[in-house]
């Protein structure tokens, strides 16, 4: 059942991505993406329902698309400009890509472990989805800034960077508290995923400081777009399994 929901959600995002290119189908694309988001949230609900009170494992790529779509549908809610349409198209495309990655490289067969039955573990994961979605959206805004006047977009990049960074930081802090309560240590160094988490935090800390200096606008934008690749390499990739061909779609 979970697999059907996840595949359907990905399919709907893919369809929305294709339909969003011609302007006349934009409303339909929004509707399909909205439906995909509902189906994706249903998938998340089932994963949580089965694992509760433990935390479901390896959700880094499968759980982000619905949150990315919610943020994207809100951020690009106006149909007025070409930038808004393109932004929305990229959001649907990225959501579909993450969904496809999870279908071709699944890791959802791992069972949760008992120590994840903690409010801090749950919060750590939830903040992680929101943080990742916010940072992806900042990257999309930065991409748009290369083909439009920078000024109004720059504040949007900064806003979504700040939103993503705050959630990412909250995820890191709740993770530290969980680690302290569960293992007696703030950082468990033999877990590569944790250093990837730190790497991304340092990357975006550098980027936010670069925004504060208000200099090197082009470098800032390039680094924000590169953040999408960084996130996929260091924070989506660890949650992917080996290639499964043909993919299990149901």
């Amino acid at each position, binding site marked *: 059942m979970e697999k059907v929901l996840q595949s359907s959600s990905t399919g709907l995002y893919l369809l929305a991505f294709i339909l969003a290119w011609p302007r006349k189908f934009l409303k339909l694309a929004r509707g399909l993406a909205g439906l995909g988001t509902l189906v994706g949230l249903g998938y998340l609900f089932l994963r949580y329902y089965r694992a509760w009170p433990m935390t479901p494992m390896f959700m880094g790529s499968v759980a982000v698309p619905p949150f990315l779509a919610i943020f994207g549908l809100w951020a690009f809610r106006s149909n007025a400009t070409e930038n808004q349409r393109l932004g929305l198209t990229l959001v649907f495309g990225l959501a579909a890509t993450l969904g496809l990655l999870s279908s071709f490289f699944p890791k959802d067969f791992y069972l949760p472990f008992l120590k994840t039955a903690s409010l801090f573990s749950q919060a750590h994961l939830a903040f992680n989805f929101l943080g990742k979605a916010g940072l992806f959206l900042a990257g999309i805004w930065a991409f748009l800034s290369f083909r439009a006047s920078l000024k109004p977009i720059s504040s949007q990049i900064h806003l979504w960077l700040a939103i993503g960074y705050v959630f990412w930081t909250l995820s890191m802090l709740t993770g530290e508290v969980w680690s302290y309560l569960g293992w007696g240590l703030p950082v468990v160094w033999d877990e590569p995923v944790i250093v990837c988490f730190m790497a991304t935090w340092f990357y975006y800390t550098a980027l936010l400081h670069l925004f504060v*200096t208000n200099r090197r606008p082009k470098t800032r934008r390039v680094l924000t777009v590169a953040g999408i690749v960084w996130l996929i390499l260091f924070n989506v990739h660890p949650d992917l399994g080996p290639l499964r061909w043909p993919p299990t779609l149901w």
Partner: protein
Amino acid sequence: MATSRPNWLWRLIRSIWLFFGSLDLAVYICLFLAVDTALAYPLIQKSLTTFIPLGEVGLWTWLTSYGRLTFSHTFWFYGLLVGVTFLGVNSFVCSTIRVWAILGPRRKKGWLLKLGPHFTHYAVVVMLLGYLGSYTLAEALPGRALVPDGPPFKLPKNLGFVSARLEKPKIYAGQRLEFFDQWYLDPGIVLSFKKPSGDQTFEARIAYNQPVRYAGYNFYLADFYPKNATSAGMGGYKTIKLTIRRDPAANIYIAGIIIFAVGVALYLADLAQTFRKRGQKA
């Protein structure tokens, strides 16, 4: 008299202070740390076991033994230590310069919200000091196994004895995940502490993520057998494995986390106000 101070020394101190207070330096340090920790991702996967003792033997011992002997896999950790030291100094100096300007004689309205980022910077310094203290001063006792209703074991430094008994467990309900059917989520372990004289001091329930504190030591549930309410455990024995740690610096990094959270809240409030003002202008 100001003239008695050697000018060159004053200028040197000032330029060092300004160098460490630079935002550009913060950017370079953070980018260095991002690349350094990103390199660690494949390296840790190659030598997982090298990093496991880090929490047990302490930072210095680890650096001079495990770390040094497997340097090709652990060099990034030395880089991380150097990087975070610079980051700590940079955060402190950078924020002190700006806090001085915010709280100085030309203080503006809404100054409190402007302190948000500086709270987070000071929190980073506090957390880094806490981590340093934790990895250098913490004491980890060798792992202990207890049998419920079995003999107690003696705590170090003549602190007394600890034994365990079982109460009503909490079990994974239903068959939502078939594998976990009838598994203990919380086996219902109660630790009893007794003074060396034999007088009982207190009892507390221990579970995963729910440590018990006694005489400055934290007792963590590391593992337990049997896992399943329908099985008898390894060889029919019920066993509880404990990790015992004394971490005098834990309160420091927890204080850092709280200060950081306050700083983030102030920063968000300031950001919301800025965007509201921009919206009104538009």
